[in-house]
């Protein structure tokens, strides 16, 4: 049964932790839907491993299961940092299939919505159990102060995890990094465009520094 395999997994995970001290840090990429989490994960994975993590889409909730890219080695200043990247589904407090009925038929939209909801649950569970650090991706062209952002940030802070805030989509005209910095002054904010690959050097510097 599924339970059994899950069990086995968890056991092996526990033993892994016990016996391999230098296991790579598991970095969760969190953020609201459509902030560019998968695009970022793909960018990082491609830059350092040559593989992609998952499909990207302009329709929210494209990523509905957490996806992991393991053993991504990032070299900075001659040092190597190895991380596992977990690309999580966008976290939101409301999922409504009607948001994407334009893009697909209703049945598909409902299914997508359901899967997205499961994805949020899964993402939150990952956050609780399995993540050693958080990259929090925000769309810098949108208002950073929303219920989800503040709530999720609060949860992350409560865990005392290292957090980097990525102000994504700086290639857009509406983008305002300042707005994000002001919204979360307690954290380091890194501007970037995952899609265009802008400012990725600073991104990797910060990843190495915070999660290395």
């Amino acid at each position, binding site marked *: 049964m599924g339970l059994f395999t899950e*069990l086995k997994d968890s056991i092996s995970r*526990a033993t892994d932790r016990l016996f391999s001290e230098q296991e790579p840090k598991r970095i969760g990429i969190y953020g609201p839907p459509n902030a560019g989490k998968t695009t970022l994960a793909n960018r990082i994975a491609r830059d350092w491993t040559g593989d992609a993590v998952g499909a990207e889409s302009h329709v929210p909730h494209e990523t509905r299961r957490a996806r992991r890219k393991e053993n991504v080695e990032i070299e900075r200043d001659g040092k190597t940092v190895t991380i596992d990247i977990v690309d999580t589904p966008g976290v*939101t*407090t409301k999922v409504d*299939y009607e948001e994407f009925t334009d893009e697909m038929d209703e049945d598909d939209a409902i299914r997508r919505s359901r899967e997205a909801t499961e994805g*949020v649950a*899964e993402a*939150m569970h990952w*956050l*609780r159990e399995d993540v050693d650090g958080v990259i929090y991706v925000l769309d810098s062209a949108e208002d950073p102060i929303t219920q989800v952002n503040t709530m999720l940030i609060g949860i992350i802070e409560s865990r005392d995890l290292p957090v980097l805030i990525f102000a994504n989509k700086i290639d857009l005209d509406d983008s305002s990094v300042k707005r994000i910095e002001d919204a979360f002054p307690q954290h380091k904010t890194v501007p970037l465009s995952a899609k265009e690959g802008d400012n990725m050097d600073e991104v990797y510097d910060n990843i190495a520094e915070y999660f290395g």
Partner: protein
Amino acid sequence: MPHQCTNCGRTFADGSKEMLSGCPDCGGNKFQFAPAAADSSAPTGAETDGSGTVDAGSTPDSSDTESPDGVATRAAETVRDLMSAGSADDVASDGADRRQPVDTEPTADAGSTADAGSTADAGSTADAGSWPASGAADTTDSNPPTEPDDGPAGEFDEWPETARRPADRSDPPADRAVDDTERPDRSTDDSSRPTEGPTTTYADDENTAQADARSEVVPADELPAHEDGDPRPETETGDESPSSADSTGESRPVTDATDEPPEHGRVVQEPSGQRPSIEELRAELNEQFESIKIVRPGQYELNLMELYNREEYIISLQEDGRYVIDVPDSWRDADDE
């Protein structure tokens, strides 16, 4: 019965935490959610619940004869009624006296006399509703020899034996009268809030004093939750607070209640006093339980804090309100590391 185990069919009240550690009966972790409104199985819409409560309330008073305790007695009565419906036999053994009155009373009220207005309402609602009301109706029919309300009884055939049995026992007529008198108030109240879901019932009503009293009797609360005559005894009771009891589960408190002496009944009853607003209760329940609210297929509201805080989490939402809960405890115990 918003939540139902898809394996054994056991139902759980909205807000119940029992199922978070798997179905107590069969250990299954797959459930389906059926909003009270939509529930075919739980026809008990708000109205029915109200009626049920009403009946119970009125009857108990009469039976117990203690005016001050009225509320408590009512609650007890209602519980008993429910129980009796679930297991008539048990009732008989426990002490026909008390229980009988209860069972019979409701029916009597509806059928017979007096309170015409109120009673009539109760009767109608009862018909519509599945459980307590139905049970009551049946009993009444049987008891009162020449009662006009045969119709309802017929409808309640579904509830058959359990419901009827109580009826078999003869009830003192006096009780009925008393019940009737009290009833009207209740009935009116109920009618005023038709919208209330199953959850609203007893717990809502209780005041602090009542609550205190009730706390001792925890098991009673549980009873409602186990409709099926559950085998499983004590484990749950502690966890579930009044809220669970309140919920529809009450309707079929079932066997456990019957086994227990009248005291338990009282416990249950207490809630009947006054009801806090449904919204409050709902908010509390949400806090306790709801991490994912299925507004309708494809629309969900998520409580991130709950999702984050709770160890169990939903790993699969399925069609038509079914979902699977990951129950870490169920296996963690076995192989801790």
